[in-house]
């Protein structure tokens, strides 16, 4: 079997330019497959990395509507709930209107318990809990604005006003936090809800939403129902869902990203299939006489077919591998620039398996017509072409 490998390779080397250009377009196709795969993953991964043991309780009408502060204690009493923290959208602006910064006033200690995956140095955590003006800053933001521990950052809100008419809260950077390698949103700031609300002109006693930690993730549906039933028919009805469902709903709001990416990739691969099939057809047509010789020498029709298919698959596999490696490098190179904006930025593992399948499939499809031609070729007819 393997002794025919040199034959396959020498056939590929026959027209180096043509093989090269075909390889080039296959490389580009798989480069795009990798990059768009990473992009699609970035959108869908938010839901995948969402905690399975967390619920989100929002106002039934919309996330934008506030809930009373008093709900926190009442949610905490629901059977199956371990911890509850409020969170609010602060609408942060730093120095210039263009620097929109996600700042969340939260219940500090509980919030960090609910999100144990956040990587917060012990001393930073201590400073954050001790200082009511303290703030934990995600690393991308700290790098973007050059903030260091101890810096005082005047953060303006484009929503909230203080009693004295100002809209600026001074935050003291207690520490920098990271998110795990598996992903997460690090481009935000956590601050004390108590510090935020003490001087509010309007909206005192209200919070944006609640995050709830469950004792048992299996129990999510029951607990969510119990929470919402508790507030049914009140002026502030709630809607509780798992963090995963909430994130997925949010991704759906952006639009059908998956369908768009699939559409683009289909166009790319359809084109590539044509290019490769054309190359194979040309190359087999040129070699008709040689195929006749091979058959005369005792190669079966099936053997010749296998040779043609092998050539085609070697071509797509080589191009595919190079394209994927390129994609891997590009994704790595772009990571520092994108880290802060996307929850994850890697080529998902399943994409490699899909790519391998695609290489094989495309190779076989592209080689199918010329291979069939080779199979059916009558020896006499082939030799006469010489």
């Amino acid at each position, binding site marked *: 079997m393997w002794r025919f490998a040199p034959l396959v390779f020498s056939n590929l080397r026959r027209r180096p*330019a*043509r093989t090269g*250009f*075909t390889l*080039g*377009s296959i490389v*580009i*196709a798989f*480069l*795009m497959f990798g*990059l*768009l795969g990473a992009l699609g993953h970035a959108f869908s991964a938010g839901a995948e990395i969402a905690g399975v043991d967390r619920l989100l309780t929002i*106002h*039934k*009408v*919309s*996330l*934008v*509507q506030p809930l009373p502060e008093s709900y926190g204690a009442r949610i905490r009493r629901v059977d199956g709930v371990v911890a509850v923290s409020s969170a609010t959208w602060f*609408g942060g*602006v730093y120095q210039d*209107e263009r620097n*929109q910064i996600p700042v969340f006033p939260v219940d500090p200690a509980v919030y960090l318990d609910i999100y144990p995956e956040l990587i917060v140095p012990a001393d930073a955590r201590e400073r954050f809990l001790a200082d009511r003006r303290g703030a934990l800053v995600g690393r991308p933001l700290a790098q973007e604005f050059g903030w260091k521990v101890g810096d005082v950052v005047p953060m*303006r809100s*484009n*929503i909230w006003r203080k009693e004295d008419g100002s*809209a600026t809260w001074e935050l003291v950077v207690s520490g920098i936090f990271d998110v795990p390698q598996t992903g997460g949103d690090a481009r935000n700031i956590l601050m004390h809800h108590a510090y935020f609300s003490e001087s509010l002109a*309007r909206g005192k006693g209200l919070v944006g939403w609640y995050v709830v930690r469950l004792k048992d993730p299996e129990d999510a549906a029951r607990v969510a129902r119990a929470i919402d039933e508790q507030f049914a*028919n009140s002026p502030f*009805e709630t*809607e509780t869902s798992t963090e995963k469902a909430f994130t*997925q*709903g*949010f991704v*759906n*709001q*952006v*639009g*059908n990203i998956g369908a*768009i990416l699939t*559409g*683009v990739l289909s*166009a*790319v691969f*359809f*084109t*590539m299939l*044509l*290019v490769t099939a*054309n*190359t194979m*057809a*040309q190359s087999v047509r040129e070699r008709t006489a040689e195929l006749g010789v091979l058959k005369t020498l005792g190669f079966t029709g099936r053997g010749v077919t296998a040779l043609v298919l092998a050539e085609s698959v070697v071509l797509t596999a080589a191009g595919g591998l190079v394209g994927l490696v390129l994609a891997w490098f590009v994704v790595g190179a772009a990571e520092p620039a994108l880290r802060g904006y996307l929850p994850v930025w890697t080529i998902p593992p399943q994409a490699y398996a899909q790519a391998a399948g695609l290489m094989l499939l495309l190779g076989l499809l592209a080689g199918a017509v010329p291979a069939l031609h080779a199979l059916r070729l009558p020896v006499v007819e082939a030799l006469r072409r010489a």
Partner: protein
Amino acid sequence: MSGVLRQAVAVTGMSLAALPQRLGTAAVAVIGIGGVVAVLVAVLSISEGFRAALALSGQEDVAIVLRGGSSDELASGLPLAAVRYLADSPGIVQGPEGPLVSPELYVIVDLPMRSTGTKANVPLRGVGPQAFGIRRDFRIVEGRPFTRGLNEVIVGRGAASQFAGLEVGEPVMFGRTPWLVTGIFEDGGSVSESEIWTDATVLQGAYNRGSSFQSVRLRLPGPGEVGALERHIAADPRFNLTVRTEREFLESQSRVLVTIVRTLGVLIALLMGIGAVFAALNTMYSAVASRTREIATLRALGFGATPVVASVLFEALLLGLLGGAVGGALAYVGFNGAQASTLNFQSFSQVAFAFTVTPSLLLTGLGYAMILGLVGGLLPALRAARMPVTAGLREL
């Protein structure tokens, strides 16, 4: 010179006459380039449609007033006193029932999307009685307007097509309160058509907003004439307000999304373009190879190198043009007018839009296709010109 030109025309004519013999390869180049152009035009038509719904629908002679420092309506808040003070300002067009000023409320309600069934942020706008006089293109296309003082809403055409449960004559629940949908409206294709409208005073009551509003829209005497209004606002230190024309405001609201979609579209098209150039190179090299003898014969007869180069380039350009036309047509037939909606992060609400394939997009696609064709034809053309005549004649 004219001799070279005549030779070029003759050689090009010959190569084009032989094109049907290379139909397979030529088709691959055309389809390859066509695919690139189709994707480029389709992706850019998203940002064009989004721009048409938001930025371009803003009027130059309508102003929007927000609280100072607010970049969007959701974050803004205006007390009744500020609204009254604004209504007295000079530089506002007077209608039959007083100045054309509409104090408005902007809240968000969750409604299920038709496409996925999951909930989406839909804007619910409370408008003043003058709102319809300010928006010139407004008209009810189905049902009737809402009755002031009642829990009734009218729904923009875009919102009605994208979100479930908005049928004329049927109630829709926002939280615990049922609202009756009385009609569907159009507003010249603007972003308003993604919204649900009701009476501002009813909305104030339903959302515990007291007597406060979030924005004021008003009609200016002429495009961009905000001077008198700005002087009036600056005169009273009690109010911190910003005035912008509607056009300016909506343009700023769409900037981020339009930039993202455009950047992505261009990057994808560039990458795909490289792939298509490879296909074109293949086609043109094999075209040159199949004509080796013919070209060598021509050269031996005294034809210059330039006409040969020109003929190869012309053929490549023609294939590119053909591909561009196919791709543009594909994008137009497949996507133009397709309805979609997305979340505009800047207003935190859904905007319904239609994929819009504009003539300038089609031209961009054609231009790109010709560039791809030329790049793909250049190297093969040079090879054809450099080919030694004797070696060429000896080829099969």
